[in-house]
């Protein structure tokens, strides 16, 4: 039960982050709540998978694929291109912590040489850098996956059940 509350709380903040970026990108106000919802659902998916001991890369990929699929559905309902929903919604999942540690790692690597922990520093930096890069790629792939799978030039040509 407590876990559920914690995950919902995370979902709320994922939504807040998505809405903030939607405002930064001047997303039309009428679809703001959709962006928040997508951000929350994607973030919750990612959090749930991490608690099931999946790697953070796989979890991010799953979350962003969900956002990609939902953005196509939202595009139909709201008559707007899918990317205006999906891009602000995946941004809360960017690996900010990994990128930050990667940057600090690079700075330290240039600063010290021949110290005892140089090898450890190198390992850590590489680990953080690879995670950051692969999570970013997973996010970009996940968002564009639905469009690639459906092979349509526009979501207007996609047949959902209502037409």
């Amino acid at each position: 039960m407590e876990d559920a509350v914690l995950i919902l709380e995370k979902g709320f903040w994922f939504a807040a982050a998505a809405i903030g970026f939607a405002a930064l990108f001047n997303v039309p106000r009428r679809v703001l709540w959709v962006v928040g919802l997508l951000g929350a659902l994607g973030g919750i998916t990612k959090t749930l998978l991490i608690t099931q001991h999946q790697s953070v890369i796989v979890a991010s990929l799953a979350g962003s694929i969900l956002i990609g699929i939902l953005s196509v559905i939202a595009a139909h309902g709201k008559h707007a291109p899918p990317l205006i929903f999906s891009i602000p919604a995946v941004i809360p999942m960017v690996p900010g912590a990994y990128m930050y540690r990667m940057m600090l790692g690079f700075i330290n690597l240039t600063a010290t040489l021949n110290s005892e922990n140089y090898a450890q520093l190198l390992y850590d930096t590489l680990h953080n850098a690879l995670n950051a890069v692969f999570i970013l790629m997973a996010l970009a792939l996940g968002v564009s996956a639905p469009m690639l799978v459906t092979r349509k030039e526009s979501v207007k040509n996609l047949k959902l059940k209502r037409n």
Partner: protein
Amino acid sequence: MSDSIPDVKKVGALLLEIGGLLMSSGASSERIRITTNRIAEAFGYSCDLLITHRALMISVNSNNSNEFFSSLKRTSPHGVNFTVVSGISKMSWKIVEENWSIELIKEEMARLKSISAYPRWLTLVLVGLAGSAFCFLFGGAGLEMAVTFTATVAGLYVRQESHKLKFNPYLNVFFGSVTASMISGLLSKFDWGTNPETAFATSVLFLIPGVPLINSFTDLMDGNIMNGVIRGFNGLMIALAIALGMLVSLMIYQM
């Protein structure tokens, strides 16, 4: 089109303007191509585009005469605006379905360009909240979240102001990054709060080049390799500017 077909020059110039607007508002290359083609066909023309990051080249051919038009246009500097992307997409379908005239399209485009969906203070507050949200997700508590909010709002404000002063775009990001990390760095410097590092790491995340990087990937997947690489490099330059800003703060605080 039942009535007279508009002049090829007018249509070509209009298509270039639409394409340029889409490019600077954050649409992918494939979307620009599809949208301009759709509009051109509504007027009885077919068009081909050469799309690059800062210039567009178009060649418009008439389907039922020998007329053609070819031109090149520089696009304006990039600033993400999804109201424009969404509005032009909607408009392109209306042009097909309702036979819009060129004048009507121009009016609609002027309207779309002028819309700002959020007043400035609201953008600042929402982005600040997004900063606190990041801080929470990375393990920050109340104090860190409050500081991240302040740092993000200040950083975004500085970036907007330096954008108005027409500084180099990467320099704008750098100024934003320095401002935000100087404020959030106070926590780490004086070791306040339980997890001061989260504030420092998340206060600059509002600057991350999400749109260039995702569009870069989309372009690469669509086979627009050149545009994808260029957009990716643009994203890397922005990331570098953010890192440089944080580095300056780290040096000033000697952390």
